[in-house]
């Protein structure tokens, strides 16, 4: 098992949320959207210019920027 931040997941790669680097309002909002310890996340794709990212969270697709994704620790 290795730990990395969400923005470093490869396209198509999945992982489990492990924790947050920093839990400010952005982190709390991500938690409310379903990213918290134990959530399974899949990186779907990156936008053509490399940012933002599209991820699968639970049963839906969410787009977020690399900066916010870098707050989330993933175990894959």
């Amino acid at each position: 098992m290795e730990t990395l931040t969400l923005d470093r997941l490869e396209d198509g790669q999945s992982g489990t949320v492990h924790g947050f680097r920093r839990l400010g309002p952005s982190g709390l909002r991500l938690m409310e959207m379903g990213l918290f310890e134990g959530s399974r996340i899949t990186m779907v794709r990156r936008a053509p210019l490399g940012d933002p990212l599209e991820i699968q969270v639970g049963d839906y697709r969410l787009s977020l920027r690399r900066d916010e994704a870098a707050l989330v620790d993933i175990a894959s």
Partner: protein
Amino acid sequence: MSEPRFRVALAGNPNVGKTTLFNALTGLNQRTGNYPGVTVAWHAGVWDLPGGPAELVDLPGSYSLSALSPDESLVQRLLQGVEGPAPQALLAIVDASNPERNLYFLSQLLDLGLPTVVALNMGDVAEAKGISVDAAALERALGARVVPIQAHRRVGLGELGRAMEEAAAAGLPGRGPGLPVSGPGAALPETIRGRYEWARARLQGALTRSRARQRFSDRVDQVLTHRVWGLLALVVIMGFIFQSVFTWSQPLMDGVGSAVSWAGGMLLRPLPPGILKDLLGDGVVAGVGSILVFLPQIAVLFLFIAILEDCGYMARSAFLMDRLFAKLGLSGRSFIPLLSSFACAVPGILATRTIADRKERLTTMLVAPLMSCSARLPVYTVLIAAFLPGRLVLGFIDERALVLLGLYALGLAVAVPVAWLLRRSMKAGGAALFLIELPGYKWPDPGTVARRVAEQCREFVANAGTIILSVAVVLWVLGAFPRPASVTAPFRARRAALEAAPGPASARAEALAELERREQGALLRQSWLGRMGRAIEPAFEPLGWDWRVTMAALAAFPAREVVIGSMGTIFDASGGEGDPGGLRQALVQARRDDGTPVFSVAVALSLMVFFALCAQCASTLAVIRRESGHWGWAAFTFGYMTALAWGAGALVFQAARALGLG
């Protein structure tokens, strides 16, 4: 019809069919408005329940009540009766294809303790994703009625009404997790986790998963968000929309223009010629015309915006373009509003409603009028045709094309630093978070789209219309008075002489019309507007403008394109507005008091640059006032754009003169 007996609030996540359900339940029986102080629209309608009518209030779609964003705090205040009267019951709409996150929000709604009915929507989408939610099992787990519906097919709505009637009569709330909904405890990590655990536990016996088919949305997205094909598709889609806006709305706009002048003529025919007829004809009818002429563009553009939004592509366009806007402190959500503003800033500003973050929305709104709209095009083309002979630059580029392109690029280039500065100065209070759901694609619901278009058109006419009309009338008065006898007497004498003169009737009519135009020009130059033009002439001297040019620019305040018609009158163009050749000639021949030409290439360039950047458009300012909720922002937009336009105009004039184009 009897009074509604109680108030039901309709709440749910975005993209779950909430608006479709609201429209299906209330039919045409709706009222809309804006919440005081905020730029969020409210919709209320009458829902006919088995026991009689109830009022149904559509709340903004939100993911949470914990108030991390202003819109969510509004939803919370509305539900708890802090803002406006509190609802007596709740209708919660839940997306069956994404049950967990939807139940997170539902857990907060249930904790409010109101009688609640859950509408379980999008079962068909869920099935395609291999998700099945058993409504009866969920009902037992929640202690509240759960009714499966298909809002877009109007399925299950009768049952929903019966369930609401019973729930409201019994006054029984559902069973939430009992965690804090507001206050500091609501947004704690433990609370959020607790709610998700609750949601999972409620779904335990109700949710079954099977193998998903490959989803239609996924296949579409492999193309539409692809790094090459996705961008190409975006260009094609936007190109198609622009093409349609121009090809569809141009004939409609011409039609509206002729219809208004025809109707005006019919209405005014019984009136004797004179000042009243002029006021009604040139002030009121022309003012009404300048409002209605916007409608085709607003309607056509909004038709596309509503379709893009309803089918799910809007979120993709934001995803594709976000990177370009991020550096300015904006996001991909500003893309469609700003792009639309190249056709017309009015629908562009109205489209900013899809931007959730308030500062981001305000910034987008304030820079939207910098995009060169279609009303500026006639100003550019007339001046370019009159003063630029079409020499070749670098041997192969037509200077006329270069100038036109430059004018379009100018607005865009100026918008970048302006947006950056505005966003920076508004930064206090937390940066916006770009977090958007990419919902599954679906066919747009024609009813929802039609309503959106009708609503925007109605609001524009009702709110911006009154302001535009008053501006048009005030400007007419400024341009029509005073009418000193020293000006009108010689014309009266010449008219009498012409009428008495022998010769064919057609030649006489033509001469009379020409005389009429010259009298109008003479009166306009004498008018208060003319005096204002003279008074502020020194201020525009750095731009190389004669007082008559200044006056034409003043007269163009209701709408930019008016400057062409006013210059025609001011410079005594023969042939009237329908004859661009006459206007061109009049502009080229216009002389100052000292005999030098009014226009040179340098003056034409400074005038075009001024119009590229100025806010001479009462409609845009009226819509900014309306959408920002404050006159101050409209005044600010006018101020900063006029300052920029003046500065850039002066710079261009001085530079062009230094290059020998003066």
